[in-house]
């Protein structure tokens, strides 16, 4: 039936290519029961205290939004409460501003000293808007002129996840591997440091973390055999202070006497070499393209590491240290303190780079300093920050690639039925390569004690293919097709109670929720959808309260700030794209489900809902 239809279309005038029908959702009974595979070292003790970030990591809200994560604790919580569930229906757009780039916009607008700063997808324009004047006119703009060829080695659209303002500088990365500090007054570079080399496939897409005079950045390129690293730069000069690799000899990884991983599987000499076939660690990924978190209490940074390369795991037997895990490091020296591997010998592209939220939380009867991380592999980990010990690991999305985490050994218990194979298609693997949740950051409200997780309900079919390493080209080796998870709806916003280890409520979306969330003291959660709605729901119940249709799908990070007039404003970038939205922002033919590393198979209908765009929107109540 279908080929006939195609022929008919081809005979007519040029039309957009006919999308494939969406694949059937994975049956409910193919996914493990959440209660069956979630584990904790102790029963919940919610009466032992109230969950909140510490004051050191989440100082009192000054109404600005100077870093994408809002504060070191990464709560993305705004203490402003002018906008409430009662009046949010009156929320209206105050202004919009075209970014002049119709690619996936993943950044958070930044607000400091009554100026808003936005960095776009490639070519990474930076705009500074004067919030004190009507219509927020441009104060300055900056074009870093990144190499056009860098677009050819960016795995998943040409995105940028934002910049930060600190000490008179706006600091951001460019796709072609530069970190740049602009003078916030003039928009002129104070320094620019090139760290990446596109000729080996290296790009930079992450948002730098700035703390105590240092700038922490990392590279992308896990789909091109790029060896992952994290680097610290001097905030005043841009000079490289240290760089730690995430594969290879201990010396390169900055593993020394300070390194005290809690699980035996991470103990031993040069595991970053020994857990790989000869030389494979040199092209083994483990990139730092997600979130780096600074902990002011323990003077430590935490960062995830990306997937091992190639995706075809049969070419790299071993645990593939130190990929798909999390490091704690000394911010001054880079020395590793502990490591935990979420997905040893990852077979499903489960990068460990998602955000970590730093909380003080009741656990086993007493207040405990933890980080909460929502991994691509489908588990929500609560980890003791000082030791790296996993206190609990619970699935928050569809999972059948593993059967839980053994909390004695820390080991992810794999399901052999969903192990990927060379030349044989393994069907209905959950979660998908992009994970139960990808990079898009969650928020935490101390008012409700809940974490608002934007994520996906997707699974996949996968067959490994032999792949050769050719520098500067993809090093993937897998033919993958994504599909909807159980129930068929592809996105979820889950309000998770980390103490009780369960969801308080879940809101469903047709498309994966690929925007971050922001939660306010007014008990509202804001997020965007890939089909172009910007929404507010009640933080306590998930009840939908308000929505506004913007020009293109939203995959960015909304913020809440206090304007110069004292009123509360909400800002967000539209502009669909990224890995999930490449079918709209990239020159992609939806008839090829394997396109965009398999994501197109489950997104082939997105072009019917939205078009490419890129606009800043600011909302407020009438006043």
């Amino acid at each position: 039936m279908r080929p006939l239809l195609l022929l008919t279309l081809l005979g007519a005038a040029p039309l957009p290519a006919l999308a494939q029908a969406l694949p059937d959702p994975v049956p409910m009974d193919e996914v493990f029961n959440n209660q069956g595979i979630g584990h904790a070292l102790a029963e919940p003790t919610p009466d032992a205290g109230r969950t909140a970030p510490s004051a050191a990591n989440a100082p009192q809200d000054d109404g600005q939004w100077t870093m994408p994560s809002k504060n070191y604790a990464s709560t993305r919580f705004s203490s402003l409460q002018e906008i409430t569930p009662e009046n949010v229906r009156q929320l209206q757009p105050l202004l919009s501003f075209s970014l002049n780039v119709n690619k996936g916009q993943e950044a958070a607008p930044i607000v400091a000293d009554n100026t808003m700063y936005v960095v776009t997808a490639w070519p990474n324009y930076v705009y500074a808007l004067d919030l004190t004047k009507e219509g927020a006119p441009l104060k300055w703009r900056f074009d870093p002129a990144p190499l056009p060829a860098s677009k050819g080695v960016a795995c998943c659209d040409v995105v940028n996840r934002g910049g930060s303002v600190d000490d008179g500088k706006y600091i951001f990365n460019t796709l072609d591997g530069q970190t740049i500090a602009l003078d916030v007054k003039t928009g002129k570079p104070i320094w620019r440091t090139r760290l990446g080399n596109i000729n080996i496939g290296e790009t930079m897409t992450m948002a730098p973390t700035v703390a105590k005079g240092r700038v922490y950045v990392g590279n992308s390129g896990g789909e091109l055999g790029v060896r992952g690293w994290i680097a610290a730069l001097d905030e005043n000069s841009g000079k490289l202070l240290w760089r730690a690799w995430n594969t290879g000899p201990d010396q390169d990884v900055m593993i020394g006497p300070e390194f005290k991983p809690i699980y035996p599987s991470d103990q031993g000499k040069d595991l970053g070499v020994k857990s790989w076939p000869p030389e494979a660690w040199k092209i083994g990924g483990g990139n730092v393209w997600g979130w780096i978190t600074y902990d002011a209490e323990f003077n430590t940074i935490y960062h995830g590491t990306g997937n091992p390369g190639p995706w075809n795991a049969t070419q790299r037997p071993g645990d593939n240290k130190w990929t798909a895990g999390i490091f704690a490091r000394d911010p001054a020296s880079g020395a590793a303190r502990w490591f935990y591997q979420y997905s040893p010998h990852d077979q499903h592209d489960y990068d460990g780079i998602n955000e970590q939220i730093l909380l003080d939380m009741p656990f086993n009867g007493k207040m405990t300093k933890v980080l909460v991380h929502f991994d691509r592999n489908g588990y929500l980990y609560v980890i003791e920050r000082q030791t790296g010990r996993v206190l609990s690991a619970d699935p928050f999305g569809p999972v059948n690639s593993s059967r839980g985490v053994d909390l004695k050994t820390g080991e992810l218990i794999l399901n052999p039925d969903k192990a990927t194979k060379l030349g044989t298609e393994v069907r209905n693997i959950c979660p998908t390569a992009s994970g139960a949740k990808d990079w898009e950051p969650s928020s935490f409200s101390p008012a409700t004690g809940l974490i608002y997780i934007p994520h996906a309900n997707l699974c996949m079919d996968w067959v490994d293919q032999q792949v050769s390493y050719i520098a500067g080209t993809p090093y993937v080796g897998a033919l993958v097709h994504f599909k909807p998870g159980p129930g068929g709806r592809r996105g979820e916003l889950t309000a998770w109670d980390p103490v009780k280890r369960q969801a308080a409520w879940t809101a469903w979306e047709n498309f994966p929720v690929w925007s971050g969330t922001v939660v306010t003291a007014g008990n509202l959660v804001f997020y965007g959808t890939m089909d172009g709605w910007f929404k507010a729901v009640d933080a306590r119940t998930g009840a939908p309260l308000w929505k506004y249709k913007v020009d293109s799908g939203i995959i960015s990070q909304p913020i809440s700030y206090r304007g110069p007039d004292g009123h509360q404003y909400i800002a967000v970038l539209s502009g669909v794209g990224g890995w999930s939205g490449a079918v709209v922002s990239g020159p992609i033919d939806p008839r090829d489900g394997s396109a965009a590393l398999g994501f197109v198979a489950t997104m082939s209908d997105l072009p019917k809902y939205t078009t490419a765009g890129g606009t800043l929107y600011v909302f407020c109540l009438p006043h």
Partner: protein
Amino acid sequence: MYFVSRIEAAGGVVLGPVLLGLAALLTAGCERGSAQAGLPVSQLSSRGVIDSALVPGLTRSGVTNDPRAAQYYNNADAVGTGKRLYQQFNCNGCHSNGGGGMAPNLMDNQWIYGGRLEQIHQTLVEERPNGMPAWGGKIPDEQLWQIAAYVRSMSLPATLAADHSDTPSQTPAPVPPSADQHAGWTPPPDTTNDYGSVITGPQ
């Protein structure tokens, strides 16, 4: 044709899954025709394959032919071998099975740098500024032609008609010469061209 003359150097095809400095395989002697830029229109025919059908001042297409392309038309072996090479050299890593991803799709009728077989070959040999690497001198020229034939096949009605799943281009049809008998752009059927000039057919 004078450019890309005999620069095959790569020899073997299958590269080990370990570090392999492809750049080391690049040999000297690649004398491309950049020196030809700026020649009078009358000498355009010696410029090689032209990307664009737009040549200021001409009343007919300025597109030229590359006689080396001829043997890759109606050639089932070429597209079959090209399909294998396309995967071996990681073309699928960016262009998927024709649907694109990191790089543009190849299975519709839009071509940024020209969609005739010889133009695709030229793109493979040279490079393109937005991320397409140069493969001339790194992959034997014969193989570049085979890859070009496979890529040209992806958007043929016969190839598309043979697609039965969401992994297209698995049964590539040979490229008929008629598919490329145009000036790089084909107006939609039934278009009336009333400006009185010849716009079709390579000269």
